[in-house]
């Protein structure tokens, strides 16, 4: 009798038991506005595992993107059930992409939906797409373990190179709820199709829908004011921004050769440190001293420059001036769009909570009037082992 009951339990499964093969792991989630007002279009990227025996290489990778439209995220999840043969499984979700249109009208509504879902982790990365999110999800380079892995791998690379600051769902919630900081989310873009008329479609790497490879890249950053995308930073300013917020200390800069206007000097950062010092006067005007200290290593010098006689000083001053002007350029853009993405407000709130209570209520407006003074001190620390770079004969 007991065996029968037990057998029944084992065979029918008990409440939560679910075979792993009944699930379809969702690796990417894209959100766009729907065709009707107040609806959203949700696209999910599902990568079914390669069948047993096949080596999990490029050839075996498959990719499906399914799109549904509904009034809310929760409803879309339910609708999704009707489209997939297996139950969509969100705990392995690697990233969420907001379409350009959605991001420019405000993401707060869908963020609430994501937070409410018990299966979406707070550590899921957040991006915005140039164009629609659905397009970005469909693209894959064919390099990653599985197509869905592509963007996650890209994210892993971002900590090494100054192309974007990775932002996760919890960061978004924290930034949206606490005053004195604004969002800056990396933008996912598609590389243009390299197929020209007459080209044959490539043999390998064709997705299920016979689409050729299209790569996703990250280079620019979207600046937000509250939950709306207001401006994007070009790759150059993105790099400056990322260094300033301390997401990565690496990066390179190219400046004109101080002694030979035809040439240039390329340096790599060894360290990048930022410090802020704020003073607040009675009329609530904030003055911020932004001090940046960089230590660099010379990679290349084009043109005439003899390190033995000139030393590093000309390069140091040129570096400082160049970086300072870029930072000022960035600050102007931030002020113009009332987007304190550097988190100056938060910095004040952390170090001087009493003063902050006076500023907190209308910080966005005060930020535009903030006087930010930038000073940069650059220092070349190393040159590899070269004393004098070669010059081509005249």
């Amino acid at each position: 009798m007991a065996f029968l009951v037990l057998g029944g339990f084992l065979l029918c499964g008990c409440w939560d038991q679910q075979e792993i093969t009944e699930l379809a792991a969702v690796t990417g989630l894209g959100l766009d506005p729907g065709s009707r007002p107040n609806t959203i279009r949700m696209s999910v990227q599902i990568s079914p595992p390669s069948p047993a025996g096949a080596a999990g290489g490029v050839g075996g990778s498959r990719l499906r993107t399914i799109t549904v439209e509904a009034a809310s995220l929760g409803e879309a999840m339910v609708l999704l059930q009707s489209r997939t043969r297996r139950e969509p499984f969100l705990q392995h979700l690697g990233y969420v992409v907001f379409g350009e249109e959605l991001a420019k009208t405000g993401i707060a509504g869908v963020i609430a939906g994501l937070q409410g879902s018990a299966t979406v982790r707070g550590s899921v990365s957040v991006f915005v797409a140039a164009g629609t999110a659905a397009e970005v999800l469909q693209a894959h380079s064919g390099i990653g373990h599985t197509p869905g892995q592509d963007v996650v791998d890209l994210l892993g690379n971002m900590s090494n190179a100054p192309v974007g600051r990775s932002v996760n769902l919890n960061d978004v919630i924290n930034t949206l709820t606490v005053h004195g900081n604004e969002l800056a989310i990396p933008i996912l873009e598609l590389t243009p199709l390299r197929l020209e008329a007459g080209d044959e479609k490539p043999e390998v790497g064709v997705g299920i829908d016979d689409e050729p490879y299209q790569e996703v890249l990250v280079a620019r950053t979207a600046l937000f004011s509250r939950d709306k995308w207001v401006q994007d930073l070009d790759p150059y300013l993105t790099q400056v921004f990322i260094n300033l917020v301390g997401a990565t200390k690496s990066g390179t800069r190219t400046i004109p050769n101080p002694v030979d206007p035809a040439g240039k000097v390329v340096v790599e950062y060894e360290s990048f440190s930022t410090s802020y010092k704020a003073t607040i006067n009675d009329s609530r005007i904030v003055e911020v001293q932004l001090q940046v200290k960089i230590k660099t290593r010379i990679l290349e010098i084009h043109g005439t420059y003899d390190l033995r006689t000139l030393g590093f000083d000309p390069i140091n001053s040129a570096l400082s001036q160049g970086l300072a002007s870029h930072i000022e350029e960035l600050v102007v853009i931030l002020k113009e769009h009332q987007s304190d993405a550097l988190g100056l407000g938060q910095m004040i709130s952390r170090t001087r909570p009493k003063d902050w209570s006076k500023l907190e209520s209308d910080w966005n407006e005060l930020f535009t009037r903030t006087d930010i003074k930038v000073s940069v001190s650059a220092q070349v620390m190393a040159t590899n082992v070269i004393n004098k770079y070669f010059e081509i004969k005249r």
Partner: protein
Amino acid sequence: MAPKGKRFLKKPTPLHQKTRAVPEGCLTGNLDHDSNALKQLIRDAGDLEYRLVYTQGHRHVALFYYADMVNLTLVSRGIIHPLQQCAQELDIAHIAQSLLNVPAYKQARELARLAEALAEGSVVLLFQGLAEALILGVSQIEHRVIERSESEDVLMGPHESFSEQLGRNLALMRSRLATPAFKNKFITLGKVSRSKVAVMFIDGIVSEDLVAEVEERLLRIDIDYISGAGHVSELLSDEPTAVLPLLRITERPSRVAGALMEGRVVVLADGDPSAIIIPTFAAEYLQSSEDYLERPAIASFLRFIRFGGLIISVFLPGLWHALVSFHHGIIPPPLFNSIVAGREGVPLPTVVEMIVLLLTYDIIVEASTRMPMRIGQALGIVGGIILGQAAVQAGLVSPAMVIIVSLTGLSTFTQPSVSILGPLRLLKYPMLVASSIFGLFGLMWALVFMVLQVVSMRSFGYPFMYPLAPFRWRGELDIFIRIPLFWLSKRPDLLAGQNQQRMNITPPYPGKGEQDGQSRKS
């Protein structure tokens, strides 16, 4: 004591009286009559030898013995020959003391006593005209010689194991513990088998209450036949139905000596090489006697492996099932994909697949242990490799499952003690069932349930989980790592209350001190 145990353990009954009461009568002095009475009592015994001897003094003597149980040389030279040469009329005491050439003798007049003595391998002498018989201890029964222990084999250290003969086993123990403090008390158990059981302990270390308790429990056993100590251990146990062995059985004299020196009592029975160590603590099943011959670091590593093996062999199937069927989010995505890929097309649900595989594995193990060495090896290869490979290729089971099941199976056999293997092989099934109902919740439920069980278990009144709960810092440390010997200078405090000091080595150690002394001199 658990209520179920009481069935086996009735009040002590006077065993000897019962057996004696059956055949009536004593010797009469009439040799023919007595011989016939004895033959009548022991009828249907084809191996009973009967011989008449005429002494030179014209006295008739009858010899009874079982062939192959006595030393025939001794019988002919030490008994028959002196009797034949004997011309005087001696009384029975003189015959035994000055005439016969035998190591041991007794006098008796009851026929039943004589029959018992014959069964023990003695020679019985009946004399014409004497209403008393002599029982001569010249038994010589062929036994196995001292061999390596099969079930508790070690690579280093003493290899010898007990044999079936109690006397020889006691001699082995005496040679290890050459002290008058080594005591053994004999108790006869079994109404029919009449096996001798020795209760061994070391005076001055052991708690006297423990010895008394062991004796009392032994005397309470009312049984017709015992095959040996292993048989007794269940009857002695506090909880005879417990899954875990509450009393450890060993056949290694070195282990018994170690146990005695910690203040334990050891029970050894005639006819069985296994000894029962009383009391036993759970942690000892993880400790191998080799550990103390190995360097501490290496032994600690091996203990870690064994401990890991213990955990894996009980929990891995349940944990794997909980992860694969309940908490998918915890599995890293690449692993998730490969598991799904492997399971694609497998017809059975995960639990059933796992139970079938685990049962198959246990069948293979059971089949190969009962087989002779060479067939057993072949069976293992066929079962393990070919069957597993074929099952995966046929799509009956997933490859990941084969790995899990074989890892579980292998881990079971990391344990140094044979008696813990059975429980480990069994326990993984309830864990799997619990996790198949509630996932990790069920697994934790089963864990707490198990903890409650083991924590309330007692081995002869001592808590079974001793150095863990109740907690003893050193004892606990000694479970997971093999701590250096100089730290173990005290015996377990629960066992040896009054005599705890085991050795007196405190840093600086003997070798080091000498060096320092020399350098100071020079």
